[in-house]
């Protein structure tokens, strides 16, 4: 019957199979695969949101997957009865200050490392990469001791200094890869016009790389915002805690206050997630340069 309806496919006796072979990828495997990956990726976010708006009774007593009653009590709790506001402010100060300091250091260093000739340039560039690759966990024991020696503990400013360890090599390296894309003819032309090397940094490199620099800054901000290990090691006073550390305050011994914890997690994830959506189209190309930490 199939052969009768489709006489042109005489040489292929199984048109259904042929159709499947031709279209299986796009009409079955692809949508199915993407749906599975989407569910796998997104269900934890559903659980954060659902938990944060359920009354405690529906979290702990008559637990249901989907919220039956809606409440904002956990959000009210973290703002009125915890130091969440302080943590949020501390995180903002730490992340912004770290980013500004790291960017200032990175822009000058990246310019020197890409466009100035001096002995040791190769060595400094190489060390920057090695530093960027050395994981903090190999350094945290001695750094803990060093921070104690220099009184960098229990203060958000100490944290800012410690965060330069990863933010400076990271932002320097990324800035280097962007400065490298500025054609050297442009700078040569400016130098011919009598501009100094310092001025060409401000009149050519920074303006041309401004969007890229903004992205570097956004990533540096995110990394500092998310940092947990050093905050855990160095901070014990509530007034100096950042959000990642502050969230663990909702865990007392074996008791997890899941409502406030998930409400706080949702709010704390917003800045990096917004940053990510804003800069999304640069993410893949930035990654291709091997510069962004996974």
């Amino acid at each position: 019957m199939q052969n009768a309806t489709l006489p042109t496919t005489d040489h292929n006796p199984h048109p259904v199979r042929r159709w499947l072979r031709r279209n299986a990828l796009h009409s079955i495997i692809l949508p199915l695969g993407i749906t599975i990956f989407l569910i796998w990726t997104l269900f934890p976010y559903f659980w954060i949101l659902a938990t944060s708006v359920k009354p405690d009774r529906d979290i702990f007593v008559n637990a249901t997957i989907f919220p039956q009653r809606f409440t904002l009590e956990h959000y009210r709790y973290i703002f009125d009865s915890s130091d969440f506001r302080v943590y949020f402010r501390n995180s903002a100060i730490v992340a912004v200050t770290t980013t500004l300091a790291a960017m200032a250091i990175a822009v000058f260093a990246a310019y020197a490392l890409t466009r100035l000739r001096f002995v040791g340039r190769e060595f400094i560039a190489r060390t920057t990469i090695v530093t960027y690759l050395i994981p903090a966990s190999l350094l945290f024991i001695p750094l803990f001791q060093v921070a104690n020696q220099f009184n960098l503990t229990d203060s958000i400013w100490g944290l800012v200094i410690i965060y330069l360890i990863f933010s400076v090599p990271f932002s320097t390296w990324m800035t280097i890869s962007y400065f490298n894309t500025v054609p050297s003819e442009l700078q040569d032309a400016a130098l011919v016009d009598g501009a100094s090397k310092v001025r060409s940094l401000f009149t050519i490199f920074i303006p041309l790389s401004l969007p890229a620099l903004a992205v570097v800054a956004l990533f540096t901000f995110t990394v500092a915002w998310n940092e947990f290990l050093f905050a855990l090691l160095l901070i014990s006073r509530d007034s100096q805690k950042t959000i990642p550390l502050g969230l663990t305050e909702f865990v007392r011994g074996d008791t997890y206050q899941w409502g406030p914890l998930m409400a706080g997690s949702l709010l704390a994830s917003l800045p990096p997630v917004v940053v990510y959506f804003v800069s999304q189209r640069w993410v893949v190309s930035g990654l291709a340069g091997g510069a962004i930490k996974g």
Partner: protein
Amino acid sequence: MNKTEASDSGHGGGALGADTEHPTGKRKPRFGQEWRLGYSFTLPLVLVLVALVAYPFFSGIVLSFQNKTIGGEATWVGFGNYADLLFGEQYASIFWNTVRVSLIYTFVSVTVKLVFGLLMALMVNEKFRGRMLIRALLFLPWATPTIIVALTWRWILDGSINGLVNLFRVEYLGAETLIQFLSDPDRALWAVIVVVIWQGTPFYTMMLLAGLQAIPSDQYEAASLDGANALQRFRDITIPGLTPAITITVLLSSIWTANSINFIYAMTRGGPSNSTMTFPMLAYEIGIAGGRQLGTAAAVSVLFFPLFIVAIYIMTKRMLSSEGQN
């Protein structure tokens, strides 16, 4: 290395050319000027590298030869800390267990992330409606703070009826017993690995997607004309084209996976019965939380460092040479 040097002289040659061709008279001797400018521009960077990385790095090595508690006096013990970790009664069994756990943890996580990441990258590289939005959503875990991911999954995998997975099993699958994911020594490591994979896959997807986009499409067209089927095209074009991206991604990810402490700190603290004790967690437990033996903890980090030297060396070479090509 060679590539880098070649490109360096290329840059330098350009600047030199400009100098000699247009002697305006205003310019000072180029060597002196650039030295001064170069050093003053890189001084803050060098300060950070020396004070915050080199100094702690070497003081960590020194520390590993000392018996030192927090706030206490340091005494020199030679290789004592290393001997304690490798053969001593107190630490040897937990240390070798940590080696085993760290290797399983890193190897399994990296392998599955690579497979999932490759599948995801191949899918979102196809053309379909809403592709950009789906990409953005699939990459979301990468943008979420690690500690929040870990806490959330701690709650998803909760061993009570209230945890999402157990709740789902009971409500929809008719399960009658609860699974203790994180407090069962046989399951905890695998549960943590699942979470590491969940968060880490998007990084692979992004890296491999960038790799896929760099493969010229005319290669595929030519192969199609030659009668190659999808599988042959994948084997002969996609895989070889992706090899550099895969190498970089796996190296970076191995370094960072092995060294991440957040997941394990927030979900299991290395327990139950040390079944999830990876080496950063062990260093933390010995140095900060329990023993407060900074010297022994530093020795843990130093013992694991050689594993990463190779990866760091290869990556440095690669990153410098790809910079040269730009």
